[in-house]
């Protein structure tokens, strides 16, 4: 399989090969020399701040099964099997630390307060000790703090992982989550989001499911209450165990379980406000009237028609005067401060028979857009039942219910109130007037410019989403021996979503719909049912040989059955806002639906070998079959008439800091080198691409029939991503300074790309494996405990991520993808998602300048139209004097040069203050919103930039003239709309206070307050530089004017009983 793939990596590949050789050679020598001889170690465990001994600290030795505890003065004695042993030291109130003995007989170990710990601290209970991992710092875990405004785990990822995961908030709407990319962009058209595995079960992230609500994404991760999450692990390498689903990385989420029998009750309450988002400035009523009355002159309107326009009649005696002479700030009509409340209570405890974790939660959000919001109810029961000495059963049951009040979002000139508030004429009134000139409370209808009333659209729309999620998981486990455990996890989950949508009559402008004509109001409904059956039969083996050899291995068979069904119906023109039932007065009723089933089977194996806590090696492979694979897919092998894909990986690590020769390197507390290679896949192919199939159609609302919708493609297969990685972990000065550097290089082959069928077929697009993509980059984190004073501590961490994405092969040539009036160019040598448009060089100030340039466009009839004064100067690259698509150039790259975060944590006494700064550098943004609001081609309101438009001969300006419908294409997709999206943002500031209150009832009480998005430094001209137009790779870097993030202020309380 490996040889099947032409691995085209950078020099890092050679580096990894050399490393493997160097790492294995000393391991082999030591294996030959291994003799078990116990060494006595004496030591002291001391407070890193005061130097005082720490009593009752626990010392464990990995692999030796021995432990010790410190005396009153902090001293201890322990015997270890190897001079290279690693001591794991933990004490109450201190952060756990791993310490290499490296041949010494006496050791001095300093522990830091638990308030000072690496921001990316491993979870102690995780299967492997951090230092034993061959997968690097990229395979890290983090505790979820629960002290933020985040409602979903993907939103919280940015706070806990930063540069390890490029997290792009989908929108400022609560619970919408984030698009997440690990180690660059590993696909072009297919899903590039990581695989989420919750308690061992893969979750479908429904990445390409389309909501009937514009700009909305039904985030399945919202079903998981943050307080129920124990840990999150981002796996970027070594993911071959998840085979064909893992090329975009894997995020493991573990929900809480009881660890001890004592009953503990934990109560979390927080509430906060989200302020209205930052608004792009717009023309006021006078400025807008001037703009409109100029633009009218370019429409060809007759003088007689002009005289009839009420907004141009300034006679106060006219009864329409009041309606057209206001200065309405439309944003104020629709926005408010949103309020979020979140309550969670959980109980853990049990006895010798069973341990349980039970949680109930309720979250409520009133959106910053009036009448929007959601409520979430959730319940979770995780239990571990001991059936017999060797038999136990794990049970997970989860339920959640989400009710959302929604409204269309983004650039939608009909039903997105946020957008309507931007484009609507400010001289209009939201309410009607009586004939006597008194303003009423009744909403005004859609206006003379065919722009709806945003407040009325909010009030009269009936847009809801109801989602019910349920899962049950049973995991019987049989311990065959001390070393071998056999388990079988069965899981069933179902997710049903009901969406209802109503576009109101009169208050929203009519929409022209093919086959319907003008739709004055419309009702639609969609029901989506997703269900999954999962079974994982697995064996785990763990054994130490002669103390120095440790082998851990697991293998199993994983089966998943997914079904997705959606039913959609819509109707038009009931012509009444009181007739909103779909079967009522609506006509042109249309139904549609999807009913897909998808199955996959995976056989996997993993073995991890450690020698003497210094040398580690890990091998993994999986063999995957999927109903989405074509029988003639490229790669893998055939069996049972099915194509099977093979995904191996190999990695090794050398814990240099445990070597005896590091004995004198006192200041180097940790040094580990890592490297590996892995092959993974992406099976997110659209369903049924291997088959030819028909779809039902309705012809002119008269008859039904079937049309061919897809041709069979037996060659369709998975994308495969091979990745080599190497890294170093280093801790200096008792881990006071911790540095992690990771290098990676990946190649994705057989890219899943969307292509056009020949036009004569009338079939649209199809999926094909075509092309190769590479990602090279690095990620590094530095963690420094800056101050460790008696009552004051300061810890800071910096993370930097970088990747360089390139398309290296496209067998059928380059292609352009259009979205949001943008063109995205996929071509060899470019990064994925780069913008392809025209370059500009200002505006022709004079007629003479335009004449001298001699630029023109085709009129489509064999003639040409010349650019004139006031038009944009487009670069003519051909150069033939004609500005056409041949003159398009690369004008922007949405991929950042660097991204990451800076954490700061301070504590003083019982107070602590943490601040998270996130940044992105060098990423270009297509500001779609500005392209709409500075085009000067329609009666939509514009930004104040329109005041600087070219108006007359000689005007020196960068803003072209305003001409209705933009016949010269001055507002076409060009570098005018591409901006530097770099930013530095104070993402969150959290202050918490541990109330020194302990009694028989209250075991712990913490009060906290946080503020989000307080400060953003950016040259970006949109509302928010942090956004994602969608999950798709090619939509990154496009600001589609979805709800921007705004300031938020939260307070919370956490109580342990």
């Amino acid at each position: 399989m490996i040889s099947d793939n032409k691995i085209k990596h950078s020099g890092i590949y050679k580096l990894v090969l050399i490393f493997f050789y160097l790492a294995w050679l000393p391991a082999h020598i030591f294996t030959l020399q291994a003799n078990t001889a116990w060494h006595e170690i004496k030591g002291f465990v001391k407070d890193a701040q005061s130097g005082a001994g720490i009593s009752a600290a626990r010392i464990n030795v990995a692999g030796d099964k021995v432990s010790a505890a410190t005396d009153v003065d902090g001293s201890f004695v322990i015997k270890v099997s190897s001079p290279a042993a690693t001591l794991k030291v933990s004490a109450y109130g201190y952060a756990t630390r791993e310490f290499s003995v490296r041949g010494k007989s006496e050791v001095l170990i300093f522990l830091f307060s638990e308030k000072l710990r690496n921001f990316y601290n491993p979870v102690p209970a995780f299967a492997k000790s951090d230092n034993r991992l061959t997968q690097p710092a990229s395979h890290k875990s983090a505790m979820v703090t629960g002290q933020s405004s985040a409602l979903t785990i993907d939103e919280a990822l940015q706070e806990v992982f930063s540069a390890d995961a490029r997290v792009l908030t989908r929108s400022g709407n609560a619970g919408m989550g984030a698009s997440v990319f690990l180690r660059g962009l590993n696909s072009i058209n297919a899903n590039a989001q990581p695989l989420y595995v919750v308690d061992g079960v893969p979750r479908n992230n429904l990445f390409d499911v389309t909501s009937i609500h514009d700009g909305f994404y039904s985030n399945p991760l919202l079903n998981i209450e943050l307080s129920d999450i124990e840990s999150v692990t981002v796996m970027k390498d070594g993911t071959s165990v998840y085979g064909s689903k893992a090329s975009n990385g894997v995020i493991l989420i573990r929900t809480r379980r009881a660890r001890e029998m004592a009953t503990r009750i934990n109560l979390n309450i927080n509430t906060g406000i989200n302020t209205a988002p930052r608004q792009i400035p717009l023309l006021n009523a006078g400025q807008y009237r001037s703009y409109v009355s100029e633009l009218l002159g370019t429409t060809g309107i007759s003088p007689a028609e002009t005289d009839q326009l009420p907004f141009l009649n300034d006679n106060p005696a006219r009864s329409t005067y009041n309606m057209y002479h206001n200065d309405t700030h439309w944003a104020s009509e629709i926005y408010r401060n949103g309020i979020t409340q979140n309550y969670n209570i959980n109980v853990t405890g049990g006895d010798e028979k069973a341990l349980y974790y039970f949680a109930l939660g309720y979250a409520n959000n009133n959106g910053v857009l009036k009448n929007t919001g959601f409520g979430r109810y959730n319940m979770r029961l995780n239990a571990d039942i001991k059936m017999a000495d060797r038999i136990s059963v794990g049970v997970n049951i989860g339920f959640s219910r989400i009710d959302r009040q929604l409204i269309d979002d983004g650039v939608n000139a009909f039903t997105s109130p946020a957008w309507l508030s931007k484009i609507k004429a400010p001289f209009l009134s939201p309410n009607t007037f009586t004939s006597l000139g008194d303003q009423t409370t009744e909403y005004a209808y859609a206006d003379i410019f065919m722009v709806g009333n945003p407040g009325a659209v909010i009030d009269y729309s009936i847009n809801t989403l109801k989602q019910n999620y349920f899962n049950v998981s049973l995991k019987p486990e049989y311990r065959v021996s001390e070393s071998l455990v056999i388990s079988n996890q069965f899981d069933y989950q179902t997710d049903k979503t009901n969406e209802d949508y109503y576009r109101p009559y009169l208050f929203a402008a009519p929409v022209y719909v093919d086959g319907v004509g003008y739709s004055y109001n419309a009702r639609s409904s969609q029901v989506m049912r997703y269900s999954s059956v999962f079974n994982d039969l697995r064996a785990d083996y763990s054994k130490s040989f002669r103390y120095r050899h440790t082998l851990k291995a697991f293998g199993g068979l994983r089966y998943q059955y997914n079904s997705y069904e959606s039913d959609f119906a819509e109707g038009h023109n009931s012509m009444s806002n009181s007739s909103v039932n779909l079967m009522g007065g609506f006509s042109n009723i249309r139904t549609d639906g999807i009913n897909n089933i998808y199955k996959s089977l995976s056989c996997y194996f993993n073995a991890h070998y450690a020698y003497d806590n210094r040398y580690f090696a890990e091998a993994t492979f999986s063999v995957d079959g999927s109903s989405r694979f074509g029988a003639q897919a490229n790669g893998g092998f055939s069996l049972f008439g099915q194509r099977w894909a093979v995904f191996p990986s190999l990695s090794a690590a050398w814990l240099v800091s445990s070597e005896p020769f590091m004995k004198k390197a006192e200041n180097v507390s940790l040094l580990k080198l890592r490297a590996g290679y892995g092959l993974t896949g992406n099976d997110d192919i659209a369903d049924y691409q291997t088959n030819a199939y028909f779809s039902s159609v309705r012809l002119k609302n008269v008859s039904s029939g079937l049309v061919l919708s897809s041709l069979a493609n037996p060659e369709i297969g998975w994308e495969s991503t091979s990745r080599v990685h190497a890294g170093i972990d280093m801790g200096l000065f008792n881990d006071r300074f911790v540095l992690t550097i990771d290098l990676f290089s990946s190649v994705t082959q057989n890219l899943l790309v969307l292509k056009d069928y020949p036009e004569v077929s009338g079939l649209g697009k199809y999926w094909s494996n075509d092309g190769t993509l590479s990602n090279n980059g690095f990620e590094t984190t530095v963690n420094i405990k800056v101050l460790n004073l008696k009552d004051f501590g300061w810890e800071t961490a910096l993370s930097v991520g970088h990747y360089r994405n390139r398309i290296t092969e496209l067998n059928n040539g380059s292609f352009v993808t259009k979205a949001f009036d943008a063109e995205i160019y996929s071509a060899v040598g470019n990064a994925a998602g780069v913008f392809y448009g025209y370059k500009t060089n200002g505006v022709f100030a004079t007629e003479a300048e335009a004449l001298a340039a001699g630029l023109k466009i085709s009129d489509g009839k064999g003639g040409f139209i010349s650019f004139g004064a006031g038009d944009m100067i487009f670069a003519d690259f051909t150069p033939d004097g004609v500005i056409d698509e041949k003159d398009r150039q690369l004008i922007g790259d949405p991929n950042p040069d660097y991204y990451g975060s800076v954490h700061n944590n301070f504590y003083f006494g019982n107070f602590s203050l943490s601040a998270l700064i996130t940044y992105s550098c060098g990423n270009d943004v297509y500001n779609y919103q500005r392209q709409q609001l500075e085009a000067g081609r329609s009666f939509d309101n514009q930004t104040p930039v329109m005041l600087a438009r070219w108006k007359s001969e000689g005007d020196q300006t960068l803003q072209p003239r305003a001409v209705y419908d933009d016949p010269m294409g001055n507002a076409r997709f060009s570098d005018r709309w591409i901006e530097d999206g770099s930013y530095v943002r104070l993402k969150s500031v959290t202050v918490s206070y541990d109330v020194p209150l302990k009694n028989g009832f209250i075991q712990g009480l913490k009060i906290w307050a946080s503020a989000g998005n307080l400060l953003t430094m950016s040259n970006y001209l949109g509302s928010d530089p942090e956004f994602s137009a969608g999950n798709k790779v090619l939509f990154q870097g496009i600001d589609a004017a979805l709800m921007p993030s705004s300031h938020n202020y939260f307070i919370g309380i956490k109580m342990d009983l």
Partner: protein
Amino acid sequence: MKAQKFFLKMFTLMWLASLSMSCSDAWENHYNREVGSGSGESLFANIEAQPELSIFTDLLRQTGYDSLLLNTQTYTVWAPINDALAGSENWSLDKKTELVKNHITRFAHPTSDLQSKTIFMLDKKFVTFARTVNGFAIGGKNLLPALSNIVASNGILHVIDGYVPYLSNIWEFIGKAPGLDSLRAYLYSRSTFEFDQAASIEIGTNEFGQAVYDSVISFYNPVLEKIGSLHIEDSVYTALLPDNVAWVKAYEQIKNGYKTLAVDGGDAQQGLNTRWAIVKNLIFKKLVTNTQEVDSLFSTTGGRFAQPSYLFENSTKYELSNGLAYVTDSVRFKAAESWQQPIVVEAENSDYGRSYKFASLYVRSALGSSFSALVSDSKYLIAEPTTVSNTTQNEVTFPIPNVLSGKYRIYCVFVPSSIVAETDKRPYKVSFSLTYINSAGQPVVESAVSAKNLLLGSGKLAGVFTSNASEITKMFVTEIEFPYCNLIDNKSDAAKISTKLRVRNETRITETVRFDKMLRIDNIILEPVQ
């Protein structure tokens, strides 16, 4: 308490930090960039600031148009310099207002890329704004290059070296020119002012639930509706305007063709129809600057005049804001070109309600046949017999609209059978009868036409005519003087048509070898006899 103070301080800091977020140089520089090359001041402020425009500034103030140029709509002003307006202080306020309105228009009109365009001024006058050899001019007055294209917050200012005189349009000219009283009396009497529901905006409902409108009252004149909007200046015309003498003379000449039954309006209607007949071909879309160089003219109602220079003999030419007017002492139209044109009823056209018996009617195209060029509109009507009885002959009756009171020669044009079968040499054997109103005002129904082309009266045996089997036959039917005109305004009034011609195939069963039982009719023609 301490905790409260602490949180208070922290939140204060947070708010201060959030306020600082709004400070962004790039943001400010972009959205608050300086406004173009203009001062940002209004048009009036720009005009007021120019010393050489002080007289125009005063005119603006006196006429109240200073406030217009201060508001937030977009205008272009061509401001005359003081020298051009010397003496204007003595003008009446109306004249001052006319001048001011004649130099301001809506929208922005810079000189860039200008060749020539017609500008619609606030006084609803069209003035030409054009490139000249040395620069630009509006209505022939030059723009001062250094003071052109001045950008104001609400438009553009050009300074000109003269003023553009106010010109009446054709409608205004008719209203005030001496000697046009008769024409004026007729045209102006037809004007009405009506509530325009389409242009009015519904602003609510009254207590009875009825719609309440912000009313727009529109000027309406049915004559202008037909001959052209002489009053709103969005087009240019050439108008031939008869003076009083010409009017009376034409009226006397034409009125005999419009004798009207009392039941249809009598003398009053006759007068109206006569006046309409005079004016309907007076307006031409083409601008006739030299009457001797025009080959042909089409009036706005469709009348065609070949070599029309005779129409303009002894006329006086006036240049007006929306065209040219020629005041003439005689309406020189030829009757057949104007008010008494031949009437052609295309047989295939059923707009006026055709009737038939014992026949099935089909419309056929002559294209591709040897008669293609000879059949009018390339279409003709087939009346196919549905029976073979000698007593049920296939026939078609054609209503003939808009006959005048006067003499006509009536023809029926047949298309031969050979149009579909060259070897078929069978002619049609036909008879005719005419329905009309007699001098007593009574209808004469189906008066048979004799073989000598005379009307025999109802119930008489009609004569039989035979067509030419190998060519188009324009068959003379009869000559008749209609005592009354029979005019209808539109096709929906077809039931009021009192003149009808019935065409019947008279071929017997035994004659079908020699005569065609079909009828193929191209049209019916009524030629006026002068």
